[in-house]
C-alpha cells in the first residue's frame, strides 16, 4: 500500500519499494524534478510518468507551480507489480485562508480552495526536459550521425520527442542521432517505430489474404 501526497507545490509518495508512478491530472504545472538521477520525469498531454533508468526507489517526486489536480495514479514496485495507492491532497495554510471556516469540517477535497500553487502556468513543462549523461558504451544498440558514421560517446535524450543528440547535455553543438538506415531518433508522433512496423506487416498480411 502506498500513499501519494500532493499540494502546496510538492508531490511525494510514501511506500516501500516504489519504482514507477503514472499520474493523470487536470491543470498545467511547471515541474521540478526532485527524484535521484536514477529516475526520469516525463509528461505528455495530461499525464506525468516517473520511471527508473537506474537503481533505487522513489520518495520525493517533484515540486510544482500551477494548477494541479490528480485524477488517478498507477504505482509500480520493484517487481513491476501494481501497488494499491491512495491519493491525499495536502492543503497549505494559504489555501485554507481562501476557504470558509464552516468548510473545515468537510473533506479536504470538498473545500473551496483551488488547486493552484504559486502562479498559474499556461501549459505543463519540465524544468529538466532532457535525460542527460548517457553514453553509448552502456547502450545496447547503435546510434549514428546524420552522415551515417557510428556515434560513440555521450548523448542526451529530449523527453518531449525521444530525440537523442550528441553530448552529455544539450548545447548549440549537439547533433541529432539516428538509428540504422538514417531513421531519426526524433519521433514527434510518439508512435513507437516497432508499432508502425508491426501495423504495416499486419495490414500487408490482411491485404494479401483479402486479395486471395
Amino acid at each position, binding site marked *: 500500500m502506498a500513499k501519494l501526497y500532493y499540494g502546496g507545490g510538492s508531490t511525494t509518495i510514501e511506500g516501500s519499494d516504489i519504482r514507477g508512478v503514472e499520474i493523470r491530472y487536470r491543470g498545467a504545472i511547471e515541474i521540478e524534478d526532485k527524484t535521484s538521477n536514477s529516475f526520469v520525469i*516525463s509528461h505528455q498531454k495530461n499525464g506525468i510518468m516517473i520511471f*527508473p533508468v537506474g537503481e533505487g526507489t522513489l520518495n520525493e517526486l517533484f515540486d510544482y507551480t500551477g494548477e494541479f489536480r490528480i485524477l488517478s495514479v498507477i504505482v509500480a514496485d520493484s517487481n513491476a507489480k501494481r501497488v494499491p495507492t491512495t491519493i491525499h491532497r495536502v492543503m497549505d495554510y494559504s489555501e485554507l485562508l481562501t476557504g470558509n471556516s464552516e468548510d473545515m469540517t468537510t473533506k479536504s477535497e470538498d473545500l473551496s480552495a483551488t488547486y493552484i500553487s504559486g502562479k498559474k502556468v499556461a501549459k505543463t513543462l519540465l524544468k529538466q526536459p532532457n*535525460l542527460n549523461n548517457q553514453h553509448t558504451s552502456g547502450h545496447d544498440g547503435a546510434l549514428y550521425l546524420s552522415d551515417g558514421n557510428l556515434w560513440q560517446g555521450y548523448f542526451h535524450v529530449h523527453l518531449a520527442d525521444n530525440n537523442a543528440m550528441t553530448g552529455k547535455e544539450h548545447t548549440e553543438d549537439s547533433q541529432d542521432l539516428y538509428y540504422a538506415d538514417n531513421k531519426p531518433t526524433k519521433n514527434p508522433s510518439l508512435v513507437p517505430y516497432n508499432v508502425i512496423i508491426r501495423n504495416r506487416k499486419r495490414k500487408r498480411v490482411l491485404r494479401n489474404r483479402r486479395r486471395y
Partner: protein
Amino acid sequence: MINIYGYSIGGNSGKFEEIYNRDLTDGDFSISNLSIRTQSDTETVTKAKINIRQNEYPANITTDGNRQTLIFLENTPVMIFNVNKLKDLQTRNYIYTFILTTSELETQYVHRNIIYTFNKYSNVGDVDGNGQINVLDVVALSDGVISGNCKDIEDGYPCDLTGDGGYNVLDITTLANSILAGSIKNG
C-alpha cells in the same frame, strides 16, 4: 431463404466472413461460444447444427421477430489446433458447415469461411504480457534494460520499441512517452 448477417466467436464478432483472433500466445486453441445471427421474413430456423471434423454440435436458438441467434458450442469447446506451431501473423483458414432445418422443413447447408490470424507475441510495449500497457511495463522494461535480461524474453518483441534490435534507454523513454500520449494501444 435464411440469411446469415453476422456471427461471433468467443466475444469477437464480425459482419464478414473473416474473424481475427489476437494475442493467442501458446497452447491449444479451442473455439467456443460460436453464434450466428440469421434473418428471414418467410421462415424460421427450427433446428441447427454445426459440423466440425465430422462431429455435429446442436445450437440453442433464440428468436426476436424475424431475427434469430443460433448459439453453438456454448458448453462444448472444440479444440482446433495448437498455436505453438504457428508463426507470427500466420493465418489458418477454416470452413464451418452449419446445417439449418427451417420451419418449411427444408434443410440448408451453409458454409462459412473463417480466417484466424495469430498474433503470437504480446503487443509491442506490453512487457509483462498482461494485455495492458502502463507504468508497470515501463518499470519492467527498465529493469530488463538495467539488468540486461531483455534478450531472455522470447523474440524480445514487446521490449524493442524503437525497432533497432537493442534494448536501451530509448526504448524506455519511447514507451513512457507513448503511454502518456496515448499513441500505443492497450491490448
